[in-house]
């Protein structure tokens, strides 16, 4: 591949005609500028596979603020600073800032040695502290009041001499909501790059010692058996067993909605009530997982939409009834992990190498609980609270005529939302009508239409000149982007008429069957036993459906994603990170999934 090869320049990428107003809504600092043509950018399809609404963009902003701060100024990673982001047609493009000046690398290395190394040396203590901080943050977020505007200030506020009227608390709650979200992301990145770095160190060692070792094998060496992210599914298995033990298992049948199951249990006497109590125990906190990665307001939590967990219950109930032990065999899994490490150790060529391997494995094990566990607290639990609080503002604004529905609120940027709240506060205080109802509905409609348009337009995987090398550990670690993968992308752009789709080999095995496209959690019920799940993101919270499918294919995700781990536990072939499975595979089409090679073949 010659050096002149490259992707389209940012300036050549046009806003889809008719969506210019919607594009202009995104903050000025996220719009591409002429000088951006000098740099390499890539589409962050891993985290943001669909066009982002104006509000949801807050996640990109908060995350990159925190990621950059940790890399650039807190731990001082020697060869990389933070990540810039730009938005066009609702797509998030990002570009890294590598450090290449040897003098600067040297001085940053000295800083890294006393900062990052302190974290590594005190990992367990700092991680325990981190969990407490996260739980406190979650507690604070839950304590935020529901935004309301009473007709008159309650009399007790007057008598208590509160002095501050209710409209002020709208702004206060909103700002604290936003503040908490930005703060949460700092905690998210407090350890993340360091954790991945230690994991990548093991990865690099294994790839050198065993050039043909698969990514999944390395991740199996460190994967936690009892990480938080497995808990939601484990709770479901527990509930299935409870249902059988309480004799209410007849209520769990395929195709019956969660509401109907609950209603029938409510009328099923003491046993039914007991099961519902058990359900409540599981729901807090374990049903605070959302059905995506937490980056879209419409990826609702199990707690907000029970259809996903309930879709998994009939299958588990059936297996319990058949006398199967459905609890995950923790001892066996743990023993398997230990054996794997020992077996590879034996193959190393010298005791010298074995000593290094032991050190590197030990460090990877120390950091991995964070790498696996943080998502539950950050992307799931906290993010659900955040989006739900914003939804409450949406409901209040909708009541006051700003929107047709509460979810319209997500079509406003976080700045615009603050303006709308102040509009409402002013109107309430002045006794006049808010301006919002005349202002927002048209814009909301325009932006919804724009997102629908953008979703139909393919966007280039990358923009700008291809760098000589990609040596930025953050980019390599988090997105798996290397010079080789860019060359693949460039090739893919030249002719994609083959009947093969390539992705990461996530879980081995070869299976043929009908593809079932599941675009949202509402479509989960379409899955029939033996179907091959094809979706944008495979997420650990989808675990319950893995028991009935034959294989899984996703647009995004890496081979160390939890979905890959779950697929391996179920022994299902899986190919993840294909980039295009949901656009190239038709619903019902016969496909072959080769999870060992990472290839999906279109058959019919």
């Amino acid at each position, binding site marked *: 591949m010659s050096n002149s090869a490259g992707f389209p320049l940012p300036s050549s990428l046009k806003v889809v005609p008719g969506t210019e107003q919607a594009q202009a809504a995104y903050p000025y600092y996220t719009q591409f500028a002429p000088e951006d043509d000098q740099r390499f950018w890539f589409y962050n399809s891993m985290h943001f596979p669909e066009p982002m609404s104006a509000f949801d963009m807050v996640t990109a902003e908060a995350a990159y603020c925190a990621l950059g701060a940790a890399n650039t100024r807190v731990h001082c*990673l*020697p*060869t990389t600073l933070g990540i810039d982001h730009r938005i066009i047609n609702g797509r998030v493009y990002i570009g890294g800032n590598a450090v290449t000046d*040897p003098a600067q*690398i040297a001085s940053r*290395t000295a800083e*890294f040695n006393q900062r*990052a*190394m302190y974290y*590594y*040396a005190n990992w367990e203590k700092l991680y325990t502290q981190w969990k407490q901080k996260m739980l406190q943050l979650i507690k604070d977020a839950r304590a935020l009041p529901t935004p309301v505007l009473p007709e008159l200030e309650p009399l007790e506020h007057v008598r208590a001499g509160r002095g501050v009227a209710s409209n002020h608390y709208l702004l206060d709650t909103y700002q604290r909501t936003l503040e908490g979200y930005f703060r949460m992301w700092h905690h998210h990145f407090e350890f993340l790059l*360091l954790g991945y*770095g*230690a994991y*990548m*160190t093991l990865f*690099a*060692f294994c790839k*050198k*010692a*065993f*050039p*043909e*070792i*698969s990514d999944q*094998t390395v991740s199996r060496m460190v994967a936690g058996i009892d990480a938080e992210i497995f808990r939601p599914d484990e709770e479901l298995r527990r509930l299935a067993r409870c249902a059988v033990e309480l004799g209410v298992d007849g209520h769990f049948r395929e195709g019956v909605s969660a509401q109907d199951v609950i209603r029938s249990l409510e009328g099923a006497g003491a046993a039914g009530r007991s099961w519902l109590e058990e359900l409540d125990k599981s729901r807090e906190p374990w049903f605070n997982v959302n059905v995506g990665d937490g980056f879209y307001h419409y990826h609702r939590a199990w707690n907000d939409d029970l259809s996903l967990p309930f879709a998994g219950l009939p299958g588990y109930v059936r297996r319990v009834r058949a006398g199967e032990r459905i609890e995950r065999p923790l001892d066996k899994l743990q023993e398997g992990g230990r054996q*794997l490490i020992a*077996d*590879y150790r034996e*193959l*190393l*060529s*010298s005791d*010298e*190498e074995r*000593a*290094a*391997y*032991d*050190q*590197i494995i*030990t*460090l990877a094990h120390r950091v991995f609980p964070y790498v696996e566990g943080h998502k539950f607290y950050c992307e799931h639990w906290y993010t659900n609270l955040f989006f739900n609080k914003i939804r409450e503002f949406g409901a209040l604004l909708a009541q006051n005529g700003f929107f047709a529905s509460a979810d319209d609120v997500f079509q406003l940027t976080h700045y615009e939302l603050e303006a709308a709240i102040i509009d409402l506060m002013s109107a309430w205080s002045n006794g006049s009508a808010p301006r919002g109802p005349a202002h927002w509905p048209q814009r909301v409609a325009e932006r919804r239409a724009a997102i629908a348009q953008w979703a139909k337009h393919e966007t280039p995987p990358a923009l700008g000149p291809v760098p000589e*090398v990609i*040596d930025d*550990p953050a980019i390599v*670690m988090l997105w798996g982007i290397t010079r080789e993968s860019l060359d693949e992308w460039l090739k893919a752009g030249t002719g994609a008429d083959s009947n093969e789709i390539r992705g990461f080999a996530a879980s*081995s095995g070869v299976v043929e069957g009908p593809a079932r496209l599941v675009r949202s959690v509402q479509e989960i019920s379409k899955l029939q036993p033996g179907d091959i799940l094809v979706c944008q993101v495979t997420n650990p919270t989808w675990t319950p459906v893995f028991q009935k499918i034959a294989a899984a294919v996703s647009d995004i995700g890496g081979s160390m994603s939890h979905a890959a781990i779950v697929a391996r536990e179920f022994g299902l072939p899986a190919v993840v990170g294909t980039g295009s499975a949901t656009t190239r595979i038709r619903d019902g089409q016969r496909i072959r999934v080769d999870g*060992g*090679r990472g290839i999906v073949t279109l058959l019919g």
Partner: protein
Amino acid sequence: MADSHVDWFENIGLAQRTEVGGKGGSLGELVRAGHPVPPGFVVRTGAFERHIEALERQAPLRGAVERLDPDDLDALRIACGALRERVESAPLPPEVELEVLAAHAQLCSQGVATVAVRSSATTEDAVDASFAGLQDTYLWVRGAREVLHKVRSCWASLYSVDSVSYRLRKQFPEREVAMAVVVQAMVDARTAGVMFTRSPTSGDRSVITIEGAWGLGSAVVSGEVTPDRWVLGKITGEITRRDISPKLIRHVPGDSGVEEQPVPQDMRSQPSLNDEELQALRNVGRAVERHYGCPQDIEWAVDKAGRIQLLQSRPETVWASKQAVPVARAADNPLHHVMTIFGGKR
């Protein structure tokens, strides 16, 4: 049986290499480690020496070789032809002949009808690799007389033009030339091939590479058929590559030894091993490697009943001879390993 000229596999090992050769010793090791090996015995080097000694008494043999000029090809060809003829046609020393016949009869009494007669050289590994190729192996040998003949043929192969000129160039003393011969039940293989307990391309010790094709292994070893090729995780068992080749011919036993035969149309593009067999081979390969303590190059066959049989195992030599630089060394501060990621590639 210390003085005898014949040893059964179960009584020998690599420790007796100088008397039973590398192939014989290694088959003995495999049998004693409990691996499936077709039954057989070794005609020890002592028998070869007796045979040569008897010939020396009639006319000088070793001296005749040492006087040859490796660069005078014509003379070499004529001399070697004569030497080969002498070694091959002279009857075996009677006590050797009796023992070989008795052992062969015992094999036949176990239901063995045909055998492979294979040279088993005593030279060191490094030499062995290139030397072994110069010596003969006879497959599908039927009847006692024919076995006796092929034992002499194996010995005679030491006096081929290639073999002799190789020794002359290496200035290998003729006194030290010796050969044992393996006589082993023949496997009527459905599928056969080779297995390396590391990657021949990357040297990776965590994978096993298996090559196989329909029929006897000779078609694979001689390169007459492009075998199917699989790469398996040695530890995980994951099959990471499956290259199924069109297999047009196969070697099968015929009336006069091995015959080439076209593969039936419907079998050509079929994989010659199923996943279960691949996994069974992987387990055997792993165990053999563990037994020897280093990666192996193994010849195997799967018989018509689907049973695996090992025909040979020797240490892998290509990667083993490369000076390995440790991937990493233990660090005084274990945390500093992360600099391989964070320190940049400069």
